[in-house]
């Protein structure tokens, strides 16, 4: 019970889950009430997933909680690093309000909602991480290579609105829902490093560096949740097919759109090899004077990316394609299914779940879940759903119960909370 409570609290506080904001439970496609029996529905969702193929839970937790990473933790982490470290975080927090159509109750409905999304996706070389975590001094005299690393991090908020249709024919129920979202960009960071190399002279007298880097930043100053640094549009689409007590299938597209970041956005590229002896003030050949007089952050950023530009640019949102399907057994008391979420623009694009839901008297739903992801590992979890009252439905769950309580396990943390109220 304590663990269940922990899961709930953890999910609530750390904002963890995986599913998109939707009207139904992710693991049991309930039969929708007859169209004449509800006027409106409200749902709230907290979803988060944190994964890595190399970082441990302790390490990720320390980062997530903004703690101090002590030397033992870092050394232990570095001792078990793979050559290419994948790490990511997908977070969404939001709520939606659905209204049954008065003219076509049960056949048409409308919705609007608000949602905050944060997606972090990184792909890092082992040497680069070592350099980042330990500094260059421990590796003086050695060549560190970073052939391919990327860091992608986006925060944005959505205001959504749309319409859904139900097409019922005997025991087949189809649903089509589409919507459009106004996106408010909050922060965006993208840095890539290709074919790069770093060498420190044992006495620190020079650095031999090859760098091929690209960066795009929404702004050089961190934006808070309520601040807007970019605006864009996106669309979403959902189609589901359910044959009562037989099988279910749905496919969805979300975040099909873009954000245009404002004029303070920063972008730059660098492709160079050089031996850095220190910032030069060559009084013999140039008479000096080439050094910036102001060493604030912007000036130094300009020093790194001398050809950088400041101005608007567009970024596509991290598109998500969801597919879910399953088979009802025992007259709907059991539902065996799979659910796949695919993010084509991320380095770790796939999250695939296989699950089975036991419907206990249409009141309690118990769902063991097995998750496989692009991080190359299996996770196991459990979801619970409950119709607490006639109008109130709660779903909580996590697919990482096998790992999230073991600090030394590879990072796998996450879960979801969904609360639905129907009137």
């Amino acid at each position, binding site marked *: 019970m304590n663990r269940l409570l922990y899961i709930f609290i953890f999910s609530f506080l750390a904002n963890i889950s995986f599913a998109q904001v939707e009207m139904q439970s992710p693991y049991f496609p309930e039969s929708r009430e007859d169209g004449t029996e509800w006027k409106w529905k409200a749902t709230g969702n907290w979803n988060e997933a944190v994964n890595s193929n190399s970082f441990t839970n302790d390490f990720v937790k320390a980062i997530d909680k903004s703690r101090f990473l002590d030397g033992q933790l870092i050394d232990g982490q570095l001792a078990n690093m793979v050559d290419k470290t994948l790490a990511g975080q997908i977070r969404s927090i939001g709520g939606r309000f659905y209204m049954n159509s008065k003219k076509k109750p049960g056949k048409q409905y409308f919705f609007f909602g608000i949602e905050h999304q944060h997606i972090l996706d990184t792909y890092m070389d082992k040497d680069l991480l070592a350099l980042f975590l330990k500094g260059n001094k421990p590796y003086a005299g050695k060549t560190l290579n970073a052939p391919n690393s990327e860091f992608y991090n986006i925060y944005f908020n959505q205001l959504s609105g749309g319409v859904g249709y139900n097409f019922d024919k005997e025991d087949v129920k189809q649903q089509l829902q589409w919507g459009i979202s106004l996106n408010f960009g909050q922060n965006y960071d993208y840095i890539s490093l290709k074919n790069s190399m770093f060498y420190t002279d044992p006495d620190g007298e020079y*650095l031999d560096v090859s760098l091929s880097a690209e960066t795009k930043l929404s*702004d050089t100053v961190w934006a808070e949740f309520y601040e807007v640094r970019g605006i864009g549009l996106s669309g979403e689409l959902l189609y589901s097919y359910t044959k009562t007590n037989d099988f279910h299938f749905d496919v969805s597209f979300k975040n099909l759109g873009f954000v245009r970041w404002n004029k303070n956005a920063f972008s730059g590229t660098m492709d160079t090899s050089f031996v850095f002896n220190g910032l030069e003030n060559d009084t013999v050949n140039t008479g000096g004077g080439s050094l910036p007089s102001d060493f604030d952050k912007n000036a*130094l950023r300009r020093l790194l990316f001398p050809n950088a530009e400041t101005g608007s640019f567009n970024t596509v949102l991290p598109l998500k394609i969801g597919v879910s399907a399953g088979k009802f057994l025992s007259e709907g008391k059991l539902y065996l299914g799979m659910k796949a979420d695919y993010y084509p623009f991320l380095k770790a694009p796939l999250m695939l779940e296989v699950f089975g839901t036991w419907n206990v008297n249409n009141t309690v739903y118990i769902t063991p879940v097995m998750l496989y992801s692009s991080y190359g590992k299996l996770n196991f979890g459990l979801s619970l759903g409950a119709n607490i009252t006639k109008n109130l439905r709660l779903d909580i769950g996590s697919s990482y119960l096998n790992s999230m309580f073991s600090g030394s396990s590879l990072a796998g943390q996450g879960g979801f909370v969904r609360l639905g109220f129907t009137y």
Partner: protein
Amino acid sequence: MRISRYLKYVVFIFFGFLILNSGCRKKSPSPSWNVELLAPLFVDTIGVYDVFNDSLIVENPDQLLSFVFNEKLYEINVDSLVKLPDTLFNFAYSMDWLPFPIPLAPGDLIISDTFDWPLDYETFGFEGIALEEAYVRSGFIHFEVFNKSDGPILSQFRINSAIKNVSDTFNVSKTVESGQIASEAFDFSGYRLNLRGSNNDTVNMLNYYIGLFADPGIPDTLLLTSVDSFSVNIYFEDLVMDYAKGNFGKNDFHFGPEISHLGFFNNLNIGGISMKDAKVKLQIHNTYGVDGNMKIDQITAINSSTGEVLGLEGDILDSLLYIPGGTQTGNGLGNIQPSINDFDFSETNFNDLLQIIPDQISYTLDMTTNPFEDSITREHFFYYDYPIEVYLDMEVSQGIMLQDLFGWGRSEWNGENIDLENVLNGNLVLKYTNWFPFTFDMDLYLEDENMEVMDTLFYEGVIEGGLPNADGRVLQPTVSRIQVELTGSLRKSVKDAKFAYFQIYINSVEGGHVKVYSDYVMEFKMIGDFEWIMEP
């Protein structure tokens, strides 16, 4: 000095680097950890022209540098030449020749006289001076008239050969009451004098006019009788010439003992200097258009701080140094091509005089103008504003010894934006690769707004000099490292300081004479070696 600028950069760039590590990421809640950083932060190369003033050195074909010192020791203005003698002349007019009294109406002429009168140089001990032209720089003409008649008179005095502003003749007048003496001094500056007389065929001659009139202001008549008389005295006082032209004759002048202040070593702030095999010349720039013989009686170097005094010794003392005259070029006044005359002092002990770091030079000398007594020429000239100049001209290529050549500098410091919160501990390593055969001892401080020292970046940091081989060439640089610990106090001072102040002493290696080549450099590199709290 350039050093002050790079020291400012040194520290700014170092701390800028620290900012860079946290500055490329946006600020958001983030974890932290310690990293060990080791990196060059700043590098600078200092060449010979950064250490020595360009005007002090000359590069030879083999890159060996010669140090050239050219310092004006003193100026000679031949005051006697540029003065006109204080000439006095007197005119007495008696009316005893009148057979009977004559009534004169107001303004009627009593007597007038136009005449040439020579400047009297001989009386003042100058021989053979024959001036044709002169410009008056300053001075006065006194005009004094005695009137022994029954009524007031108007006296008028004019120098027809003194013209100002192209056409204004020197012309003054004075009313003198009966039985009175009237006297007045008139400013004579700015007048151009034609000294060739009324017929333009002589020298040292001015043309004058004196006129006495019945005062135009009298109501009736002035009765002039045989007992009346008048007296006029005119004399020049303190007349100094801007320019004169003619023949200056053979004349002897004595100068000194006089003291001239020497600023050269004050500028260097040096404790000691010695030149090996220095070529020492006394260079005389004769801007006067007359040749002459100069004889140096004595030159004494004085260090007023230490009290050291040392006199020049050598055969050149008491020798006659012939100096040709300068020439005028073009039409304009003041276009002078001085004759530049070098006299070798290498065989004297002049080098020893410099080693006491004198701030004063005392000298006594004699000069004879026109020693060959050329009485024909009228092309001698001088200008008051262009005195004869005497320079010390010294070239040293075989070795120089510096002892505590001192330099200092202060530059503004703005460290308010330098964030050192994340520096846990560490050091700055200052590495110097020095080809110069000089040792540098340096102190570097941070000061508050009152220029009071807040902290010491380093004190008596020694940068060893390169060691010359048998040929005097440094073939391998010497590497020195100075380590500065980044203490908590220093981190605070870096943020609060308003000025950076340094002192530096330069000495020749091993206290000897060293040659300097143009390819000598000193590379300075600052390396950061510290533990840093990373907060991305």
